[in-house]
């Protein structure tokens, strides 16, 4: 059982219910929220927003008003603009790091699960070793020493995610490799590469995709923790984590500065978790048995 499996076991009865009723309102609401956040983040430049970095010290800590729909932060910057540009950083890192990790981790897991033997032993051992390290501490240390930049944050978070992706990919490969169509392909003399790419990969894409969504949620949280501790996206560029950290300094005087980005981030993480979990429940390989 991988550590990230903790997000939930198979819930057969829920799957049954879901099949009966379709995916449900909540699922589609989550999809809609993700789509909305992705859209505003992608087109932030085209939206009629204030400059997210423009400080107006005299207008600091303003409550939501017509001029600033979500108020201003401790330096008088527009919270709405910062939340949307923050979505760029948070989602950019939240999508790119898991994507990198999935590419590398899935390849490793696929090869190990298919070839088995010493490669598999090595991979399992290596993931056991890597998973023993507190990922957050490593991320903080590496960013602190290598320097704070978006690229470094992405690379670090991707590296730390590779072991769990590799585990999932290997498990999924193991479930597929003895199926008839693989045996048949092998019997017909297909090359390893062909079997891996044409037969096995398509069959593990769905579980990997579901896991990818959960990873996005986890990575958004991880980036926010780094930013919260001052080692994420470099200022003044907003990210949700640094917005919450800056708002925390005014928590007693103006709680909205911290709680607005916190709310946006919570909804986004929740949405990714929901979609990921639902997809996983549907595509779980154990479902059919």
């Amino acid at each position, binding site marked *: 059982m991988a550590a990230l499996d903790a997000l939930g*076991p198979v819930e057969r009865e829920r799957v049954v219910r879901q099949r009966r009723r379709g995916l449900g309102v909540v699922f589609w609401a989550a999809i809609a929220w993700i789509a909305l956040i992705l859209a505003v983040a992608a087109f932030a430049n085209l939206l009629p927003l204030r400059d997210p970095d423009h400080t107006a010290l005299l207008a600091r800590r303003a409550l939501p008003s017509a001029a600033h729909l979500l108020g201003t932060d401790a330096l008088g910057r527009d919270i709405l603009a910062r939340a949307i540009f923050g979505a760029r950083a948070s989602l950019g890192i939240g999508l790119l790091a898991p994507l990198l990790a999935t590419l590398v981790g899935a390849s490793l897991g696929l090869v190990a699960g298919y070839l088995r033997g010493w490669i598999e032993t090595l991979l399992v051992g290596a993931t056991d070793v890597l998973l023993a390290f507190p990922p957050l501490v490593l991320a*903080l240390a590496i960013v*602190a020493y290598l320097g704070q930049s978006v690229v470094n944050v992405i690379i670090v978070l991707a590296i730390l995610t590779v072991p769990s992706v590799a585990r999932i990919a290997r498990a999924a490969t193991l479930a597929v490799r003895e199926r008839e169509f693989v045996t048949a392909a092998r019997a017909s003399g297909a090359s390893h590469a062909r079997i891996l790419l044409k037969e096995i990969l398509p069959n593990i894409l769905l579980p990997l995709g579901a896991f990818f969504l959960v990873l996005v*949620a986890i990575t958004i949280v991880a980036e*926010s923790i780094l930013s919260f501790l001052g080692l994420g996206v470099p200022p003044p560029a907003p990210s949700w984590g640094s917005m919450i950290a800056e708002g925390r300094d005014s928590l007693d005087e103006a709680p909205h500065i911290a709680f607005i980005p916190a709310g946006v981030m919570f909804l986004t993480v*929740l949405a990714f978790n929901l979609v990921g979990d639902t997809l996983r429940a549907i595509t779980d390989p154990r479902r059919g048995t």
Partner: protein
Amino acid sequence: MPGLIGRRLLYLVPVILAVTVLTFLIANLLPGDLAIAILGDQATPESVAALHQKLGLDLPLWQQYLHWLGGVVTGDFGRSRNNEVVLHAIASRLPVSLELLVFAEVGGLLVGVPLAILCAVRPGSLFDRTVSAVAFGSLSVPPFMLAILLIFLFALRLHLLPATAYVPFAEDPVGNLRAMVLPGATLALLEWPTIMRVLRSDMITTLQEDYIAMARAKGLSSRRILLVHALKPSSLTLVTLIGLNVGRLIGGAVVTESIFALPGIGRLLVESIYSRDLVVLEGGVLVVAVGYVLVNFVVDLLYAALDPRIRHGRA
């Protein structure tokens, strides 16, 4: 059973060795010269070279590793930049983190287990759906957000609990427990959903088994059936879960200890990163990583001891 322990031990040794190698590599491959970091503005080429020699930094990497490993095995983790013995720093902070983990795990179980049982009895009921939804939502809350929310509500607004009043247990037991409530609750609130979700589906499956129906037919009270016949097999799942959670909790502890000013190992690690104190970082990471491996080793054994299928089958 002895055979199993032997096999697991045989696996444990290389894993721990690999953990030490990796810890050493991470600490030594991070950019920055330890000698320059120690000497600061006093770093002249001569003083740096002298310190290199004193610290053994002029040796090949593998010799440095062996030297370091030899020290670690004999309990010598070196000294921090402030000349504090690193082993002491770790030893004095470990109990705080352990207390926090116990608080979090016990809190998580106290909330998670009863809710799981109540939900499993009537899956799909309004109660079950509500609790499941809340549990799912809780999983999306980052620890620092929860910590801030708790401080805001209980310390700043209601003035019910202290935010950062940590005192050693030996000095003031009541004060110690009071100070642990908010940080413990922060982690417990992140813990109960996983416990509840896993246990709930586990029990739903168990409750459909034949022997439960038999017990019902024998006329046993439903409370007895639930707590003895249904919960007992799920204890396996709980044990595994707790082992896995340790790793996640350590991550949560880093943040929680920083926010609540607990002098635990998580804060030690964060501070060592901020102050670029590699020797402390190296020692702390090693202790945490080896601790994680050992906990999971024990969990594996417990699992085997509890589950006859594993004990006799392939490990």
